[in-house]
């Protein structure tokens, strides 16, 4: 309803029958005069929902990270106990480090594997580009759980790969390292996020002015030099956003490690989930979530700073 009065260009008509004509009149006049006010009133329902659903819960999560668990209740006096136990118990730090490492590996693999595909669609597809884009991004929209589950079927102890290889007589016993390992998690993460990685890289490759490439060729650059001196530097913004778009969400993933990771492949997300489930120490779970967010934010900032620096050096 706020939308109708917000876009009101003829307040007398649209608000007829209102109980407080004077007040709505004043409101409409403000809305008419100020573009920002109109914009805000259209945006306000969304912002309100996001505030209640994101900002407030985050605030409470931060507060809770300073509480402690007392049986089934919380001790709400503020202490740093959880943060201290994060420092003391090596398992927490080790899991966090492993998560960051595994999602870095998945990010690098995804970006390297997706870049040629984005390049192909941007430079070598001339008709029906949209079909290609839809085809590539289609899996991303469908159930994450089921795509991870599909990899369990493929990599399983008696799964597709092992049983096919055994059936063909290439191996005698199933390859055990396929499932329940870090590599299984990294493969699955890379596959699951591929669709997401291609879009930003495609957009920045598509933006490149083709006459620059022609100029480079005219001035004697071969295809390889042309790629490294023009295409790659100009597409770096896309590569950077793709990297962040994969790295940030995968660090907190817990479905993939839970289904495919086994004990070696567990990530910090699994531990957070356990704190809110079986272990039932919510304040510790809140602390781990905050630490995870802080580490992600720090790495993302350092990464952006570093790539900015490199880009300035190049150009």
């Amino acid at each position: 309803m706020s939308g109708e009065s917000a876009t009101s260009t003829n307040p007398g008509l649209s608000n007829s029958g209102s109980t407080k004509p004077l007040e709505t009149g004043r409101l409409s006049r403000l809305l008419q005069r100020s573009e920002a006010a109109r914009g805000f009133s259209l945006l306000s329902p969304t912002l309100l929902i996001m505030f209640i659903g994101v900002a407030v819960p985050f605030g409470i999560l931060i507060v809770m990270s300073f509480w402690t668990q007392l049986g089934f209740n919380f001790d709400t006096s503020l202490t740093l106990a959880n943060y201290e136990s994060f420092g003391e118990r090596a398992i927490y730090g080790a899991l966090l480090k492993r998560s960051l490492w595994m999602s870095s590996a998945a990010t690098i693999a995804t970006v390297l594997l997706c870049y040629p595909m984005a390049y192909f669609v941007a430079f070598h597809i001339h008709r029906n580009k949209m079909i290609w884009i839809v085809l590539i991004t289609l899996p991303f929209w469908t159930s994450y759980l089921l795509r991870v589950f599909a990899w369990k079927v493929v990599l399983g102890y008696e799964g597709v790969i092992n049983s096919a290889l055994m059936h063909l007589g290439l191996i005698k016993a199933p390859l055990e390292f396929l499932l329940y390992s870090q590599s299984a998690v990294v493969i699955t993460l890379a596959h699951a996020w591929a669709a997401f990685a291609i879009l930003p890289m495609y957009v920045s490759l598509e933006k490149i002015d083709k006459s620059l490439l022609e100029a480079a060729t005219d001035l004697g650059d071969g295809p390889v030099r042309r790629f490294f001196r023009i295409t790659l530097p100009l597409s770096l913004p896309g590569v950077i956003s793709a990297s962040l778009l994969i790295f940030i969400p995968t660090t907190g993933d817990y479905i993939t490690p839970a289904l495919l990771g086994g004990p070696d492949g567990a990530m910090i997300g699994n531990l957070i989930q356990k704190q809110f489930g079986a272990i039932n120490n919510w304040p510790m779970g809140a602390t781990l979530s905050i630490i995870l967010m802080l580490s992600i934010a720090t790495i993302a900032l350092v990464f952006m700073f570093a790539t900015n620096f490199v880009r300035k050096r190049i150009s």
Partner: protein
Amino acid sequence: MSSQSYIHRPNRPLQVYAAIFLIVLYVPVLFLPLFSFNDSIYVKFPLKGFTTQWYVELFHREPVWAALMNSVKVGVTTSLIATGLGVFAAKAITRYRIPGRGPLVGFIMLPLVVPGIIFGVALLVLLSQMGIPLSLYTVTIGHVIVCLPFAIATMIPRFEGFDPSVEEASADLGENAWWTFWRVTFPIVFPGILASLLLTFTVSFDEFIMAFFLSGSDPTLPMYIWGQLRFPKEFPSILAMASIILLASFILVFIGQWINRDAQSKTLANEEE
């Protein structure tokens, strides 16, 4: 630029790579339907024989239907709310100069990037502190937050793609805001709204992480599947269920993207400038 230009010479290795890429993207998922018709409870080669018994069994299972109905209820509510809010938000973002627009849009788009588990536990903590019991309603709240960025991102190209002077003309000719919206804006952005409804429904229908933390005693379909994963003998029926869900999702998303394709290709082309 002609496609015969030396820069656009067909690149054979790259074409092969693209073909392999698409195959690898789709094949793991295609094993699910393949084995769902296999006459064995073990998911392994060689295939035993063709059967539809897993689908028949699924059809007769009460909890599956209950979970399906839960997911549909949550999905429909979520897509209506997210799309309804998204229309106004997309209009505000594209049409008006708002101070602090960049950070605000960044804030709204956060759920696309921040790990789902963080949103899940944060909302869980809020709800429990407020004493609100977990139910399908709380799942819907979580899904609206996850789906809003998708709805807005789907509709922004629509609003960018049409000339604001059409709306101004309608206002100048004496139509009030309400009717301008219904008779001018709505028909033009309608494909975007339809696409957004389909896409957000699919995202909600398939969403697992929020549902994991915010579900009460009524499971959504992904939650039900998660629960069944523990039992090896349920594997084939999960395969059958997964195949149906994936097929339905692919169709819905494809239709959604297809309806909105001209707006999307326009934005992609605009960004070229």
